[in-house]
């Protein structure tokens, strides 16, 4: 077996969909700016790149065609670099990393760019032409269940009070705001030019979040429920990219690896509690890495909702002090296709910064799935 490493991570600033600074930026432009930034920052020789694997949850409209190939061309990568657009909903760009790592193990190239993008301003969730199968909906409506409803289900099943969710959301906001003001985020952000201005910082965080403010919000998905806009990740525009290569290649080319990819896994679960996906996929990945949750020094879990994050942390018996140290998606944002690359790159980066041996990145996926990656310090 070869050692496959993450040797670079960069992302765009994340901004609110429909009202943020990136509304007018096309997703392919956004992705190519970040890919370009990653190539420049890592110093990888573009001629060595086998493929650009680009995750996107709603690959239509401006995210349509084979966006990955177009981003290769737009980013000025050599014509020899291939491009594949990958859809596993929210797990899309983590899947891109997994596919690259698997391909590298098969000897199919030495370096891959694994990225993801979503403009939730310009391509709506569910896309422009949602056309569910009426017969499946009749027999199994949960196959198309809204994400908010699944979050309520998890909250009920795990008895997670609204207050507990709000404490979690406040903590996420405070960690993210602290990370931003301490300059811990600036290094990973590739500035984006939009409407003549230079967008170089995240826009979703709410520094003035308070428990009182959160308590005043109305339930967003169920009038009798507990999940609000404050305890859910916001609709977001953003892109993220990582460089995945063999350890040998990194060493030979003076690249600086962040972490070794130790194992990964995907798993299916009940669609109506899709938020529990990280539990099943993480257990598989941890087992494959030969470690237990107690061994983890750093965890990045995608905060699609506070309920499913709390439930996953609880069942996996994660140490909360290791989780989302620089804040999570409730504060930073969740551009569906880009999140997997962000949290995996972030986990590697934080592991290197904070020290320790093991890190986990994991997320839930609509329709009832989980995905997880275990990283080891290099």
């Amino acid at each position, binding site marked *: 077996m070869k050692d496959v490493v993450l040797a670079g991570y960069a992302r765009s600033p994340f901004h609110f969909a429909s009202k943020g600074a990136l509304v007018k930026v096309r997703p392919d432009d956004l992705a190519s700016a970040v890919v370009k930034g990653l190539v420049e920052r890592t110093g990888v020789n573009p001629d060595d790149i086998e493929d650009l694997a680009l995750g996107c949850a709603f690959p239509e409209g401006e995210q349509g065609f084979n966006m990955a190939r177009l981003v290769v061309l737009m980013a000025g990568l050599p014509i020899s670099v291939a491009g594949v657009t990958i859809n596993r909903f929210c797990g899309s760009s983590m899947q891109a990393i997994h596919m690259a790592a698997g391909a590298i193990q098969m000897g199919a190239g030495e370096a891959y760019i694994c990225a993801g993008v979503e403009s939730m301003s310009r391509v709506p969730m569910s896309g*422009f*032409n949602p*056309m569910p199968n009426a017969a499946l909906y009749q027999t199994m409506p949960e196959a*198309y269940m809204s994400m908010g409803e699944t979050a309520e289900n998890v909250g009920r099943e795990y008895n997670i009070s609204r207050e507990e969710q709000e404490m979690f959301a406040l903590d996420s906001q405070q960690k993210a705001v602290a990370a931003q003001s301490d300059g811990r985020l600036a290094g990973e952000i590739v500035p984006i030019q939009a409407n003549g201005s230079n967008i170089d910082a995240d826009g979703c965080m709410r520094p003035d979040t308070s428990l009182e403010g959160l308590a005043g919000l109305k*339930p967003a*998905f169920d009038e*009798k*429920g507990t999940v609000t806009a404050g305890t859910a990740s916001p609709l977001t525009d953003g892109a993220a990219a990582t460089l995945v290569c063999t350890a040998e290649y990194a060493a030979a080319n003076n690249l600086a690896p962040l972490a070794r990819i130790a194992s990964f896994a995907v798993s299916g679960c009940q669609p109506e509690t899709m938020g529990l996906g990280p539990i099943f996929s993480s257990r598989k990945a941890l087992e494959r890495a030969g470690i237990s949750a107690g061994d983890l020094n750093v965890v990045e879990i995608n905060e699609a909702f506070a309920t499913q994050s709390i439930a996953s942390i609880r069942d996996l018996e994660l140490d909360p002090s290791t989780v989302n140290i620089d804040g999570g998606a409730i504060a930073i944002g969740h551009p569906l296709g880009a999140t997997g690359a962000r949290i995996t790159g972030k986990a590697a980066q934080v592991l290197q910064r904070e020290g320790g041996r093991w890190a986990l990145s994991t997320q839930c996926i609509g329709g009832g799935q989980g995905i997880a990656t275990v990283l080891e310090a290099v």
Partner: protein
Amino acid sequence: MQAIDKVAVIGAGVMGAGIAAQVANTGLPVVLLDIVPDGAKDRNVVASSALQKMLKTSPAPLMHPRNAKHIQVGNVEDHLQWLSDCDLVIEVVIEQLEIKQGLYRKIEQHRKPGSIVTSNTSTIPLAHLVEGLPKSFQRDFAITHFFNPPRYMRLLELVAGADTRPEAIAALRTFGDRLLGKSVVDCKDTPGFIANRIGILWLGAAVRFAFEIGLTVEEADAVIGKPMGIPKTGVFGLLDLVGIDLQPHVEQSMLATLPEGDLYREIHRPSTYIERMIEEGYIGRKGKGGFYRLNRSKGGKVKEARDLETGEYRPAVAPSLASVRAGRQGMRALVEHPDRGGRYAWRVLSHTLSYAAALVPQIADDVHAVDQAMKNGYAWKRGPFEMIDQLGPKWFAQQLAKDGLAVPPLLEQVGDGSFYRLEDDRLQYFGTDSAYHDVQRADGVLLLSDIKRGAERVAGNRSASLWDIGDEVLCLEFHSKMNSIDEGIVAMISKAIKIVPSKGYKALVIHNEGDNFSVGANIGLGLFAANIAAWLQITESVKQGQYAYKALKFAPFPVVGAPAGMALGGGCEVLLHCDALQAHAETYMGLVEVGVGLVPAWGGCKEMLLRWSNNPRHPKGPMPAVSKVFETVATATVAKSAEEAKSLLYLRPGDGITMNRDRLLAEAKAMALAMAKDYAPPEPRELQLPGSAGETAMTLVLNDFRRAGKATDHDVTVGKILAHVLAGGNTDPTAAVSEDKLLTLERNAIVSLLKTPQTLDRIEHMLETGKPLRN
């Protein structure tokens, strides 16, 4: 004609910002300036926060939020040089002569030579404003007095000074009339001009006599309101609305400028009762309450009225006065009634109307100007002289004399006659020269009421008529109750389609001068038919409406709709079938059927689908048009202006918008004639619709809305039936759906909804209360 292509408004208070918004509504660029507050970080903060506030104000000063981009905010310290390319500068600052004059001197240094400067002053005479200013300034200066809120109140009082250039006045008149859509009335340079001069006396008299005669506030408002043709806020409700605390300022400024011996000085009495209300913060709706308040203390919402003796609040009671009931027979019956309501009406009217009569020609050249001002500035149904005509001028004069009140010379002059008369079908008014003169309409104004006067209708029934409006154009007028669409209107549509080609007409315009174009179908008839389970008849009558509208669409001549006010439900649908619309800027269109538990079934779903499918800027595929129409119809979205209607595609990109309602018919007719030249009717189209997949997608949305508490159970039922229609029924995305197939789906949908008790409850509730039932 001097062009006005760019405007500056100085003073960003409620009036200044509102005037700037109305200029922006025309699409012209406007500069909005105000002072720099001490120590302000953002030196434009006053103007920019006024603009931000307007985006949240309801009713909205802007006809579309995007109009805000026409307004450039700044301040009077840094940006006066912006005046150098403005053709008109409107001053709307505090009513203090020194401040205004100081500003004028600064404006004079920066403005473009020959540009026009106006003030929105309501109290300071023009002669005082320009005293000591350069001749060049005086020549370019006038008063343009707007009413609050400037977008919605139609009156614009225009005052020229002794030296004002006639071309400047002509330019202002055209700008006010054609662009801002105002009814421009020429006033003399006298205190309060026309509307406030009479209006303030009327208010003073109405308040004072209510106390003196001992009426409750509800009684006073009931007498003042409907019987006199004055908005139902009456007098006390009006004071609550505008702010009781403003009154002392208005009164004092009037008293400071009115001539000696003016009747207002006699009417005016300082009221300790009102002074105490102001001291205690009971200043109206913006304060703790006023003469009325909504008491929410016990969880509910109780409307309370203030006792005029004790000053205590008590639950409001619907007044029962025999005089108000008698008033339905006319104003004379009201004022002659012996009860306290009748006595009150007489005392208020005798003072107000005689005051108005005594002020012509002092404040305006003629009685018609005074009537126009009161109707458009105070929203009275009838002007003072129209009211005197109703009472009978001679009788009125006699009663004044009997009461020991002065009989104005003009009233003596008119004697046995009346202030208005018809002469050869022309409306004429009584002039101060004792001769009758034609009421002049401005060039380009065409009123159906003028055409109808003395004319024979081409055809007609109880609900609708056809009128020849000249140049071989026919006009279809609705005149049923609230212009609701009924069998009579449907029949007259069919008739028009036959008459236009057979009698040599070129085009049809659909227009009326009601407050609202049409509030929708007559749902009372539907309810009745459903209650007796007359399903076949219901299907048949829906079908007849569909066929009539369809025939209108495919008629061999152009049909232009010219709506103003509300055009809802079936009233909106008739417009959707026109070839083009020329809409008044204040047109409120919407398919609101779901509010009564129904879906649009006279082709409304079909026409909206066609429009959105045809929109090149909308995403492609089977769903985007369907989703958009679903969103619009399922939420009963009503456009709050004609401009907003364009965004919702109730209006098409090529449809016209007329700012001045009086010009609507002429512009619609011109549009119809232009289209008649090489007219070819549209071809029927087919649509590719998503079928069951689309229906499922919309069902998912409905279920999410239900769960989130944004929809009721019956909303979901209605929504699912609407989804079935919009998805094209059981079609497949590879198949084509005809317009007729969609009409069948609409028809089936409405019949199945009329079979649900919840829909019938909604209809009944709407008929009883005028409000939708959320069941």
